[in-house]
């Protein structure tokens, strides 16, 4: 079973750094590694999982933490 290797919080970031930071963190994953990303609803919640999936990462979970804060779990 895979374990979470990394955590990234981009709830305080704005475009384009929300996407830049997520991308650079995803690139650090080795096969089977997981990354949990805390992000805000709206553009980050729509675009970060979509572009990660387009790049071949698995989107394992999307959960609402509280209010507009979400947690998305990725795996390479």
């Amino acid at each position, binding site marked *: 079973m895979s374990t979470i290797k990394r955590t990234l919080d981009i709830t*305080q970031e704005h475009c384009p*750094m929300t996407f*830049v930071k997520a*991308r650079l963190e995803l690139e650090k994953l080795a096969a089977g590694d997981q990354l949990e990303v805390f992000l805000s609803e709206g553009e980050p919640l729509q675009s970060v999982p979509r572009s990660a999936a387009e790049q071949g990462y698995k989107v394992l979970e999307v959960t609402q933490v509280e209010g507009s804060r979400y947690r998305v779990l990725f795996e390479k």
Partner: protein
Amino acid sequence: MTEKKKLSLICFSGDFDKSVAAFTLATGAAAVNYDVNMFFTFWGLNIVKSGRRRSLVGRGPLARAFNFLAGGSGNLPMSRLNFMGASPGLMSRMMRKRNVATLEQLVQAAKDLRVGLYACEMSMNILGMKQPDFIPEIKDVIGVPTFLKLSEGGETLFI
């Protein structure tokens, strides 16, 4: 995995605000898996000079005077409301306060995301400059045909 899309930016203006816009687009696109190329020409070359401040680079007195007056990425003027050069510093301060990436951070992000940075051969020749006068991330010095080849099949913006 989907096929990579492509975005090419012609950075003609050396204005601070337009440079922020160009690097925001470039890094945002690269982050969502676009192939991104930036072609710096004329005043746009000031953004990628190795010296951030005014310096006497270039061959010949006129070229050196132009380069000194134009300065580097630390001297870029605002396209509007420049207030004799005070505005870019004030704008950067506001950007930091609001947690928005500054131009310096965006340029670093472009390097980290391996955005293709290219300098215009003709503009460099006018200004008497050589590749070592620019940041080391400038991949190559190119002309129109190579830029067209690089941008083929994607979107191109002139800023």
